[in-house]
């Protein structure tokens, strides 16, 4: 109950901000931060709970973005349908990645997910209809009432996706599914012998994680009015999605949220204050600091408080 009250509160804040704040920069920056919240939350379902490290975030994110862009180009479908299509496509890709776990574990699974990014990027570089290597410019429609600007609408939409993602992650974490995934992470064989259908659960986690990443990518073409393979399948998404849970903490659904807000806010600030090179350095330094000093992330530092509040 407390979760739903705070989730509703956060979402209402986003709506109120869209209604009263005039300065659009905060929405552009906020949209990016929220995108990372979704990506980190989605990543954690597979990587944090089940222990399967996925470097392929850009593949799912990018497939979602392209699914939305192509659907829009072909049919001018509204944003809602673009998001649904993106989630479905990336969910399917997640399903396929889940089947990979049948044979590939640990580092081998991680490497296979990098290959997914390369495959996806090559695919879209060579698909002329989707703009090929040069990219595709899209004319975005007028914002839907009551929004007066498109970016505010995208911001609220992304806030909704973020709240939904966290709610899904929370449900998985606190239910029998989450217990099963943690059992898989601790010992896959022991989990299977305890009656956990490990393959089904892994495929499920991969699909959900992929679908959420796809949903995070879906509004991107409308955000940019443009889509292009190199930046869409940028490994920065993989790094952000992986680093945020590591910094925030992987054992509780709020960990990736804290990590993503902290990390991408710092990155936004660094981009417009220091330089692009510093941006990458910031992530690296933060990761090293947390791996060495706080292996369980920010949450680990506040562990007692959180585990007490959970039951």
């Amino acid at each position, binding site marked *: 109950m407390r979760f739903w009250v705070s989730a509703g509160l956060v979402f209402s804040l986003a709506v109120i901000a869209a209604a009263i704040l005039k300065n*659009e920069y905060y929405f552009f920056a906020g949209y990016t931060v929220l995108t990372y919240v979704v990506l980190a939350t989605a990543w954690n379902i597979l990587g944090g709970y089940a222990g399967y490290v996925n470097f392929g975030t850009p593949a799912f994110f990018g497939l979602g973005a392209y699914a939305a862009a192509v659907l829009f180009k072909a049919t001018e479908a509204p944003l809602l349908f673009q998001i649904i299509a993106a989630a479905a496509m990336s969910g399917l890709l997640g399903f396929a990645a889940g089947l990979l776990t049948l044979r590939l574990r640990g580092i081998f699974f991680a490497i296979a997910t990098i290959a997914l990014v390369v495959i996806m990027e090559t695919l879209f570089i060579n698909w002329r209809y989707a*703009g090929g290597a*040069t*990219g595709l*410019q899209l004319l975005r429609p007028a914002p839907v009432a009551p929004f007066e600007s498109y970016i505010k609408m995208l911001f609220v939409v992304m806030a909704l996706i973020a709240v939904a993602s966290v709610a899904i992650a929370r449900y998985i974490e606190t239910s029998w599914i989450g217990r099963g995934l943690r059992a898989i992470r601790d010992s896959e064989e022991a989990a299977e012998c305890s009656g956990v259908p490990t393959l089904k659960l892994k495929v499920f986690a991969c699909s959900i994680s992929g679908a959420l990443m796809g949903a995070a990518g879906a509004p991107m073409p409308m955000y*940019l*009015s443009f889509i292009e393979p190199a930046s869409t399948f940028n490994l920065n998404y993989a790094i952000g999605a992986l680093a945020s849970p590591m910094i925030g903490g992987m054992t509780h659904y709020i960990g990736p949220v804290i990590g993503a807000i902290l990390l991408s806010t710092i990155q936004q600030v660094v*981009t*417009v204050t220091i330089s*692009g090179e510093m941006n990458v350095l910031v992530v690296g330094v933060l990761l090293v600091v947390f791996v060495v000093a706080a292996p369980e992330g920010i949450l680990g530092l506040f562990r007692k408080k959180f585990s007490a509040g959970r039951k």
Partner: protein
Amino acid sequence: MKIRKLLVGALGAVAFSLISVGGALAQQPIKVGMSMPQTGSLGAGGKAALLALQMWVEDVNAKGGLLGRKVEFIVYDDQTNPALTPAIYTKLLDIDKVDLLIAPYGTVPTAPIMPLVKQRGLLLMGNFSFQVNRTVRHDMWFNNSPWNDARSWSDGFFSAGSKLGAKTVAFLAADQEFAQNLANGARVIAKSLDLKTVYEQNYPPSTVDFSSMIRAIRAAKPDLVFVMSYPNDSVAIIRAVNEIGVGPSVKLFGGGMVGLQFTPIMQSLGSLLNGVVNYNSYVPGIKYPGVEEFLARYSKKAVAAKVDPLGFYLPPFNYAIGQILEQAVNATKSLDHKTLAAWLHKNEVKTIVGPIRWDANGEWVNPRVLMAQFRGVADKDLDQFRKPGKQVVLYPDAMKTGTVAAPFEKVRGKK
């Protein structure tokens, strides 16, 4: 106690002097803002372009600024990542409150900000992008690049070829959209000139070995070989041609090879470049007023800043952006974007890259993509490229610095 008193006193003095200075500077500076790729794939070019723009800011401030106000230049690094530019440009507009906007170098980082400037009705100075305004059709966009459509790239090559009496042509193109765009433009021109296509090959972007294609071209005995390639491919193709040769039939070789304009590539290929006829934006010997003086100043600063020491390709055109803004603001005595755009649509602007007039779409009415032939280039010599004659301009006619040397194999052999 004493130290504290001293500190308080010092702080007070500083604060007072700040206030008094602030009073004197009632005139706020004019802010010009942009993002420039300084890292990522366009980073090297972006840094050189940025240096040129900073030179313009210094120059204009030395002359007393614009409308009597100092010019302040605000620039962020977009890492050649289009996902970052919308946030950067809204920051420029909504937080930094810039008065004038310049687009980032390149088509990709520019594309996402086109709807933003259109929606807000803002003037945007383009920066070497290609047809980025084609779908958005924003009437307050003015590009600085010397091309307009795909045809403007290959016109010069074919006009030089037809003067040599060419009858047949071979096409070699990267299988990517930009190269294909150029190829399509080139095919239309070839058809209108009654050239027969004897060889046509699209190669995948990851190709590294071109020897079989060069042999096939040699076997087809074309008069012209039109190549549309990206930097890595361009280098590999030039090396393959120098190992294998394209045969005595070929009069002209080159056209749309991206990368041969870049200083490090010119330097490393050296004499292997001789004979190649390729597109360019500026080469020494062209008498635009002020450009030589600019490049002389630029190369001194470039060495210190460790960026492209020659700076032919991008920097003069970036300096020109500043000149364009300067002339429009001074002529209209205004910073209003609509007024400025209306003036730019009506008037010709004089820059160090020649006079510029724009069409309704914000591209140049008279494109000036040069076709230049490498001649007498030696190995391992950077400074030779500063001299006229190493790249002989064949087209456009008004800027010719020499006549074409043919056949290709004969010119190639000469050092």
